[in-house]
């Protein structure tokens, strides 16, 4: 048995410790917001937070994730109201939407560590996430907007 703590909830699962976290989250725990895009840590669609870091769950084995704190897109906020989620909605960022869980999970780490990122910071943080629809320009704008919202919120 391997114990995974996902979005604050404990799951005891019977799985090969070599199984990538992605497939345990999707096929065993049943949270399908985290996506399979490449299986080789190339595209970022499977990004989740492992102890706060934006790991690629398609190459992260269960043995590494066991007993650690995992957050998926479903746990980014309670009501779809993380500043990034709000900005994503306001700016109509997603097109097909498939990569956006990963984009948001990556952006959330950026924003936590750098509340006011420059375009260069966004390039540095977000180039590991591919969007085939080409929403990059809007992702960039939405991160800036979320940063502004976050700072505005902090003032209140």
């Amino acid at each position, binding site marked *: 048995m391997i114990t995974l703590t996902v979005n604050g909830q404990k799951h005891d699962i019977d799985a090969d410790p070599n199984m990538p976290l992605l497939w345990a989250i999707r096929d065993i725990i049943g949270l399908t917001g985290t996506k399979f895009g490449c299986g080789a840590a*190339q595209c970022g669609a499977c990004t989740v937070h492992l102890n706060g870091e934006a790991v690629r769950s398609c190459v992260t084995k269960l043995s590494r994730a066991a007993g650690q704190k995992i957050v998926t897109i479903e746990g980014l906020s309670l009501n779809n109201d993380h500043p990034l989620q709000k900005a994503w909605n306001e700016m109509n960022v997603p097109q097909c939407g498939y990569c956006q869980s990963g984009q948001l999970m990556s952006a959330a780490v950026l924003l936590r560590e750098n509340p006011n990122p420059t375009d260069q910071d966004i390039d540095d943080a977000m180039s590991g996430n591919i969007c085939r629809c080409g929403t990059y320009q809007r992702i960039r704008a939405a991160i800036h907007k979320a940063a502004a919202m976050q700072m505005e919120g902090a003032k209140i």
Partner: protein
Amino acid sequence: MMETNTISRRNFLRASGLAGAALCLGFYLPANAKKEELAAATAESGFDFNAWIRIDTDGKVTLTDHRAEMGQGSYQSVPQIIAEELEVNLSDIHVVFAQGNPVKYGSQITGGSSTIRGSYKKLLKLSATAREMLITAAANKWNVPAAECYAEGGHVIHKPSGKKLNYGELVAAASKITPPAQVKLKETSQYKLIRKPLQRMDTPMKTNGEAVFGLDKRLPGMLFASVERNPRLRGKIKSFDATAALKVPGVKKVFKIQMMVFKTTRDGVVVVADSTWAAMQGRKALKVEWDDTGFDHVNTADIYQAHENLLKTNEGLPAKKQGEPDAILAKADKKIDVIYQTPYQAHAAMEPLNCIAHYQQDKIEIWGPIQAPDWVQGDISDKFKMPKEKVIVNMTFLGGGFGRKAFLDYTHEAVAISKELGGPVQVIWTREDDVKQGPYRAGISYRGQGAIENGEITALKFKMAGQNIDHWNGPGRDKANGSTTEGFLKPYYDSIKNISFADVPYEMPLPNMWWRSVYASTNGFAYESFMNEMAVLAGQDQLDFRRKYLKDERSQRLIDRMEEVSGWKTRKQNEGYGVAITECFETTVGQIVKVSRQPNGKVKIDKVWAVMDCGWYVNPDIIRAQVEGSVVMALGAATIHEITFKNGLVEQNNFYDYLMPRMSDVPPVEVHIMENTANAGGVGEPGLPPFAPALTDAIFDLTGKRIRKLPFNLNEV
């Protein structure tokens, strides 16, 4: 604008307004009839038609999206049209995807940028009809003239008295009213929703993981499958050994499977397991011996050499001709004769192909990211000898499509696997499968010949050599590719007297499929690059040169706008500006690209301006998003990736060798939309073709180097 309805009393059912009833409105194609008719009925009448609009007695409004949502916005724009004339708030409506049913919905194939342009007129009419019926029901109830009532926000309001009824309260009465023979549609200036940049209704569920894509759909008892297919695109299996695969924990079954790729077959060995991971592990443990007999072991270099030989020696099949370009070219002094090459490309949607199938004795049910549910229904019905109405095709959200998910191989394979397995199964393609198995956008080569005299074009002659998608599906090999002129602006024909297009078909064993903007994606590069070369030969500004030949008002206004937004007229010489204008699916897009040389010596794309004239439109923000995305996709195809073949094998595998543009690679794109109410054109694809020729033109302007072969490495320019 008055619109007339085709209503047959015969097909309009006066169903009783029972409690809990719902008013449904849609269209119906009577047997043996050519024209579809409007139909309205209560939900329990059993009358089967495309209920585009359903209003329940509790006021809940459900609208149907008959097309696939693959990012292009049909989930938003179809309801946005309906809600406008129906007078309901977008926040109060629910959207459901239609199942595949061409009898009800007409064509559902989400391709050719056709969702809006193919259905907006009838959707407007349908919605206005529903509104009028609800108004009449309210007026009858209040015993007041209908003219004193109006609809707003899902209510009918009696203007003089302020009395108000919710649509839900009117459903029972409205369902007994004969739809009006004529309805009045709003003028563009009266729109409250259409032409407004409203937020997409599918965004919230795409930011918290709720949206269900094909890969996310789950059925009780469903197993997962991964297929090892012959790496040569149409090869077969000699033998396989499943011993090791069956020992992988979770693996349930291993067997041989065959799917149709157009009219040929492809063999594979499928591993079925209780998780995706187990299926993939089992697949890795397989030992398969392939049989490649009879397969043409193609190489990329040979393909393009063959193209070039054909273009130089073969006049091809005529596609379009006016005047005598050959005679003029033969005598001309000032002329050019060049060849352009464009690569094979994979669609590489972010959601790899996948499909759930459940084959049962009396029905087949399918769920998946499907661009053409109606085609899938017909195809599966044919191949498995199941009546069409027993083939239920459910669309999920699509994690991108770009043409690939309109192909029928993956759905056929999934049903075949489910049949053999005897239960529901989800077949998941890996990224490698998705990249390596095709079908691809065909790589096409072009020859452009043109003559200039006194600064004017006297002759233009284009030939294309490459594969024709249509040839996969049957006859027509004696006719030129119907898409030979795709991308080329039609107004040119009015002013360029001597012009010809020909197609030199090049038959190959590689399956091809539409790829965003189809042949315009490659034609546009050749034809518009050539126009830029002709402008240089004539010694004229590229936009002024086009202005002379694109004399229609819409083109002139588009060019004005392009100049205005980009500062074209005030640019300095050789500052790195380039331009192209293409037409695709009834929409014209002009783009201006600006490049510069960075201190590190590399060329950088500073900015892209795009001006789109798509006529009547629904949501300007979705249009802008589509053009922004089209530019990124075009950038990848022009400068970053290509599919190549070596000895019949695809050389690329995954995003490490079929690279994608990333955040740090993309230039800012500024999109402008022309305002007019001409017939709606497409939106999802037309932004793609002009980018590559505008980019290479900008590079020519900056460096003097004309690029005629895609892709090229921007870092090496």
